[in-house]
């Protein structure tokens, strides 16, 4: 339970920021809708929903100030389970719809929940442009590396050679690296986490929520029906200690039992995984998500070719950039200051006009 500020100005004319005003007590129940949650039993989405509901009250944002926008796919159902405002849109277009919501109403807290097919295949264009513009939306991409809702075709994050219903001889496609893609799209916040690690997921969500502007969070999510165990290397009791590379700001990046392995800086500026014992301390990469240059984050994204190997988790990048909706509000304010508040009569009469006087002039149109 958290005691927080209530509201902030709301209304279609925008303005204000969520989370200020009179105190309000919120619990996870305030955010749970009355709809029965229906994913396949054992789906990773349950864990994400449960963590999210437990986390969200601490933001102090009243549920009516939150908007969820989702697309098509298993992730799309998320919207029905949050008792906030929400739009379940069409395939791939959630970032576009959310761009409209967030730009029209900078006072709202806007979240997109999407999947690897929804965000990276059919909706790839909207994702990169929302990130580029730095629209104030938090984009949670549930990556299960498979098409679940359409029953098991390979996705744009499936590994090469993946055998699925649509690729009985193996997939020929090279997968996207979602974190690298987001960084390439000039995202101001990029993170990666896993469905079953409640604490890590909560920490990443907290950072994303606190970020001003677009935040992209890739959440590895197990599809136990069509792609079970895809992230076992990062979630298994034994294996996770070996493979999770946790990124902590200001800390040298070491992982494995007793920090036996580390991320080392190469002389050409790239990063590689090395044995800590063989690496001089000054060559162990020290993480800085606020680095002005996205290159280190990009290099971290490429430490592994997929989640079956040691893989970086945490906040890759978190930098400040002007936020789209606020920029637009400012532009409107400046234009209003310069031109005066819009006056329709004045607008219609602007430029060359002429007056036809009353009297003596036939009224009514004449036939030509």
């Amino acid at each position, binding site marked *: 339970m958290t005691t927080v500020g209530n509201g902030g100005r*709301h*209304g*279609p*004319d925008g303005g204000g920021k969520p989370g200020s005003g009179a105190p309000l007590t919120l619990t996870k129940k305030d955010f749970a809708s009355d709809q029965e949650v229906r994913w396949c039993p054992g789906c990773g989405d349950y864990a994400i929903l449960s963590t999210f509901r437990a986390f969200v009250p601490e933001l102090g944002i*009243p549920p*009516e100030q939150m*908007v*969820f*926008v*989702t697309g098509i796919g298993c992730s799309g159902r998320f*919207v*029905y389970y949050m*008792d906030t*405002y*929400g*739009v*379940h*849109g*069409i395939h791939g*277009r959630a970032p*576009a*719809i*959310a*761009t*409209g*919501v*967030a*730009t*029209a*109403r900078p*006072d*709202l807290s806007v979240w997109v929940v999407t999947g690897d097919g929804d965000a990276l295949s059919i909706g790839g*264009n*909207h994702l990169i*442009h929302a990130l580029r513009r730095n629209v104030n939306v938090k984009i949670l991409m549930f990556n299960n590396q498979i098409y679940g809702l359409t029953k098991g075709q390979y996705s744009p994050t499936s590994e090469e050679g993946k055998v699925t219903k649509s690729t009985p001889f193996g997939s020929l496609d090279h997968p996207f690296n979602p974190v690298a893609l987001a960084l390439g799209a000039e995202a101001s916040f990029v993170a990666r986490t896993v469905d079953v690690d409640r604490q890590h997921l909560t920490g990443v969500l907290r950072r994303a929520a606190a970020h001003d502007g677009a935040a992209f969070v890739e959440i590895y999510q197990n599809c136990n029906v069509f792609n079970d165990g895809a992230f076992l290397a990062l979630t298994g009791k034994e294996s996770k200690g070996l493979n999770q590379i946790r990124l902590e700001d200001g800390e040298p990046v070491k992982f494995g039992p007793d920090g036996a392995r580390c991320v080392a800086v190469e002389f050409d500026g790239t990063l590689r995984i090395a044995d800590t014992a063989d690496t001089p301390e000054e060559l162990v990469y020290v993480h800085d998500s606020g680095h002005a240059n996205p290159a280190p984050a990009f290099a971290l994204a490429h430490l592994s070719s997929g989640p079956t190997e040691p893989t970086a988790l945490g906040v890759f990048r978190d930098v400040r950039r002007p936020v789209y909706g606020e920029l637009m509000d400012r*532009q*409107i304010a400046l234009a*209003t200051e*310069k*031109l005066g508040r*819009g006056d*329709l009569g004045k*607008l*219609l*009469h602007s430029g*060359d*006009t*002429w*007056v*036809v*006087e*009353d*009297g003596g*002039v036939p*009224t*009514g*149109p*004449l*036939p*030509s």
Partner: protein
Amino acid sequence: MPTKTVEQKERVVVRFAGDSGDGMQLTGDRFTNATAVLGNDLATLPDFPAEIRAPAGTLAGVSAFQIHFASQDIVTPGDAPNVLIAMNPAALQTNLRDLEPNGTLIVNEDAFVDRNLEKAGYASNPLEDGSLDGYRVYRVPMTSITVRATEGMGLTKKEAERSKNMFALGLVSWMYSRPTDVTTKWVEKKFNRKPDILRANLAAFRAGYNFGETTELFAHTYEVKPAPALPGTYRNIAGSTALAWGLVAASVRSGLPIFYSSYPITPASELLHELSRHKNFAVRTLQAEDEIAAIGAALGASFAGQLGVTGTSGPGLDLKQETISLAVALELPLIVVDVQRAGPSTGMPTKTEAADLLAALYGRHGESPLPVVAASTPANCFDTALEAARIAVKYRTPVILLSDTFLGNSSEPWRLPDVDGLPEIDPHFATQVNHDDGFMPYLRDENLARPWAVPGTPGLRHRIGGLEKEDVTGNISYEADNHERMTKLRAAKVAKIADDIPLLEVDDETGDAELLVLGWGSTFGAIRGSVRRTRRSGKKVAHAHLTHLNPWPRNIEEVLRRYRRVLIPEMNTGQLSMLIRARFLLDAESYTKVQGQPILAADMDEQITRRLTR
């Protein structure tokens, strides 16, 4: 110096034609403004190439602007020009066929050199070979006089030559006794930061004017008296500007900020340009990454409580249809403007057509009904935009507004409305829980419209989406009877709008017409002009014009059955006529034209006369 005589004219059609680099649109636009200020009624039609900079002097690069002005009420940009100004051989080659027999042809003699003649496909110089004998030809060395007139102003020869359009404007302004101060003032304002260019343009304009007055080449000047008009303040307005201002007016009259989201596409980009200038009306404009994002963001803005609008042309309409169907399911206000152009596919982007009617009505999967309105004249674009907004907001529905290239680009005088007299639009946001069991997002009002509860409103939190919803609660439902009920409710809501729109009016002077011409969209001017003209020669013909294409006015069938014959002219291959025939089992006749050019009053004269000659 011989005295020049002044000859009275009732109506004149002038066409300026030249290379796209010659500034013909600007020349036409300036001539139009001087004409408007003089009080003539007028209508204009620009015709420019799709290429931004086609090779100079080629047929593909010809740009033209036609203006019809008169001392009477007129409704079309005119058919055959009385006067053609041809700045080069290519302009002559492409435009001469339209000039009336014995019409006036003014050519820039300097441009008729071998290289240009060759580019225009002339084997010999038409100024020399007698092929122009059927016209009154005036050979004016416009380029060289302009260069001489601007000597000593510090311009390069090329810069000086560029002012020759102002020379042409000056000459034609003199011929038709246009006031010079309107143009002079405009030049002074436009170029006040470039004194050299300002002086050169004024010098060229005066040189053209004086050339007419002093040379013996022209014996007459013409005068077209002001047209009688209702008292009021007037301005000249192009369709695209009127449409954009109509949206601004809808915002002012509803209190809803406009959120205009669009992807650049000819000829709809003008709307984005115009609206982005009006940020001081709290207009938000977003140049989206694609057509789908454009409508997605507009729909998102509507969900958030603003008036989402997107504009496009045919290819973009295709891409937006899935989101339009989402808007049909969400039942949120949304305006989709389609400035139609010739298709299919890329088609002819700068040429007009009105062939998206069926796409607007039926271009989506499933049963996906929505209201469709169409503007009929440039000034009417203003009213139609307001009407689209009124319907969208009141009935919580996407509305498609059809315009076209011809309407968007052409202009006419507009008697400015009184702002306070414009319709008020009440957004009527939901503020209270509407049911004992909580807020029901699909509990409908007497118009069958659902509540519009915007984020931030306590107690009304709800989720909506493209999945079929349960009646009243809005929860997901796959129940058989519910789907049928919702399908019928969505259709009934749109059909019911017919109670809330004006009845179809008929222009039937004597009430005994035998032929009814039923039009929609930009054919209004051609039909109205022709119906009046043919009526004067005894034809019993009436005209009715549809603004609402879905639903139709309640009395449409009764009106149609009143006449022995019904003719439906369209800039497509018969889309409305197919609908009328199917709906009423009525033997409506179709006249169609798909040439990328508007239907002309002369086309209509022929169609009407043919049907009424016994």
